């Protein structure tokens, strides 16, 4: 067993057991994220030094770089962190819920729901991807699909296997609808929709940050508190019931949390795939822990992946600003092969 710290309240009513390794890894990742964020803020088409960035952050009023750093780059960096973190945690919750290492928001149809709604909206209005209404519409799509999946998979409670299969089927139908709308749209709208579908943080604004943040502020701590029930479920349904876990109630709660986290993230950043799939696996490679300990690590890894992917897309091909989703897929593919290797080794 790894070492752990136990914190208790004076009357022993509340206690928290903290794994030392989890704490250290979380801390290390947080520091890495902070350094990476400052580096990402420093680079761009207008060159700025590391010290300029720190100076601007410390004293915005006296800096002529305030516009570039605080209004253009900072919201984008924060969005990358929030969206990546939300997707990483949603993936962790779903993989625990379905008890399958290959589940993720994009695989079971949540992302497709948001995509179909967003493309329908773009097609009807012919508006640009920066319209204020696009995000709420996409989130509505994600929740509608989650509702349909639950309704179709419900037979005296949710069975994870049926949930996945129904999600896969709905995702296929929705992808067909999305393709249909793309083909029917004029080329400019279709291209715009395609960039949204790949996932891009281009032109993120402060109002995007303030709209997305509340979802995380509510859902993330709730997930952190409740995730211990997922550990009970991972030992099997009978064991979870025996331990006094409200099995179906918690499944529903975790599904809602995963949809809220993934749906809000996708609504503001477009259909970024793979983070939900790979971030939880990377977290599991770093620490051995229950879901509660994995949550902060998976979120931080998700944030780091998207931050770097967006950074590469923004800086590597100046003057072109490429969608971060391309580079996330680029990181996702090698990891997929690694996952394959691991599964094979486990078989031997």
């Amino acid at each position, binding site marked *: 067993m790894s070492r752990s710290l136990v914190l208790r309240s004076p009357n022993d009513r509340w206690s928290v057991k903290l794994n030392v390794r989890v704490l250290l890894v979380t801390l290390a990742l947080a520091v890495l994220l902070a350094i990476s964020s400052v580096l990402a803020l420093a680079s761009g088409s207008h060159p700025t030094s590391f010290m300029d960035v720190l100076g601007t952050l410390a004293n915005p009023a006296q800096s002529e770089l305030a516009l570039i750093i605080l209004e253009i780059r900072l919201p984008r960096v924060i969005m990358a962190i929030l969206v990546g973190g939300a997707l990483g945690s949603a993936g962790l919750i779903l993989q625990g819920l379905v*008890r*399958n290492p*290959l*589940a*993720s928001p*994009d*695989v079971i149809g949540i992302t497709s729901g948001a995509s179909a709604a967003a493309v329908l909206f773009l097609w009807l209005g012919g508006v640009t991807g920066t319209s204020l209404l696009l995000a709420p519409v996409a989130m509505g799509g994600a929740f509608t699909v989650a509702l349909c999946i639950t309704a*179709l*998979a419900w*037979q005296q409670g949710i*069975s*994870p*296997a*049926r949930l*996945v*299969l*129904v999600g*896969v*089927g*709905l*995702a*296929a*139908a929705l*992808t*067909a*609808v999305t*393709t*249909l709308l*793309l*083909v*029917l749209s004029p*080329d400019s709208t*279709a*291209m715009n929709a*395609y*960039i949204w*579908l*790949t996932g891009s943080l281009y032109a993120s604004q402060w109002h995007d940050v303030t709209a997305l943040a509340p979802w995380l502020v509510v859902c993330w701590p709730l997930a952190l508190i409740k995730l211990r029930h997922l550990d009970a479920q991972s030992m099997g349904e009978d064991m979870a019931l025996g331990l006094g876990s409200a099995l179906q109630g918690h499944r529903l709660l975790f599904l809602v949390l995963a949809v809220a986290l993934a749906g809000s993230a996708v609504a503001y950043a477009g259909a970024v*795939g*793979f983070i939900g*799939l790979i971030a939880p696996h990377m977290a599991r490679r770093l620490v051995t822990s229950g879901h509660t300990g994995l949550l902060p690590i998976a979120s931080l890894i998700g944030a780091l992946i998207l931050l770097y992917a967006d950074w590469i897309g923004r800086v590597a091909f100046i003057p072109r600003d*490429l*969608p971060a*989703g*391309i580079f996330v*897929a*680029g990181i*996702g*593919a090698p990891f*997929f092969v690694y*996952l*394959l290797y691991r*599964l*094979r080794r*486990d*078989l031997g």
Partner: protein
Amino acid sequence: MLTSLLARTSGTLVCLGLLLVATVSSLVFGHIPVSLDMLAASLMDYDPGSLEHLVVRTERFSRTVTALIVGAGLATAGALMQTLTRNPLASPGILGINAGAMFFVVVGATLFSLTSPSELVWAAFTGAATAAFLVYFLGQQAGRGVSPVRTVLAGVAVTALFVSFAQGLLILNQDRFESILFWLAGSVSGRELEAILPLLPLFCLALLIALLLSRQLNLLGLDDDVIRGLGLRVGQVRLLIGLVVIVLAGTSVAIAGLIGFVGLIVPHIARGIFGTDHRWLLPLSAILGATLLLAADTVARLVIPPQEIPVGVMTALLGAPLFLHLARHVRAVS
């Protein structure tokens, strides 16, 4: 279900009749309608001056042949995969084989400037084989063999991987937007007959091998130990069928891009009517698959003229409800 030889033979004749009707409709209906007399004349006595003759000869004929080949190929591949994996949800679309082939075709078309299907088909085979390999290994679970849900998830994850790569290429290569969207959406139109013909020998060979393996396929539904006891070389038969699936699905994708769900629904329909004997199931899947794709393509032309709905969208909208129905009733093995 039809059981006697007579009933099955007459059932087959009915299906062939449907195929004929679908073929003629595909030649006749469209933005410019062609009468039956005109159709006969254009085939027997071609007059390049007539608009109808020109439409039938240059566009509709190749389009119909494409739909025939692709429909038959995908449906047979689906029937083979459902037997091979003992999974009712298996099909080249669901298990990622089509997406793998599509991605390699897109790479061949954009990065290496390959254009003719006879060049692209080898890219498609490579992609289909890669995807099949990935899904096969990802779908296995330590010590417990292959689980249906796990295999489907592996297939969907592999599909997501290849589709997102193709979308990435699409955004990097905006000047090839139309051409890549063609592969992603799936379409049987705009293929020259001359370009398809070189693919046919290998395709027909694969179909023939599948038919010759019918008896072995019938045994594959049994327990592995029983099959070995009956003297079947399980590994070799599986490998051969895997190759046949890759050729059939790869050829279909190289010609028409991503067309989903034909491989899923047609074998279920054929099995519902003719039972699980592969000597009937495989040819009937091919016939019904061709009929379904021809019908879907014909309807896709007529819904919102003058525009066309991509045929892959039509088949997905038809197939997704059936998939949901199957998914709700599949035994939860995981």
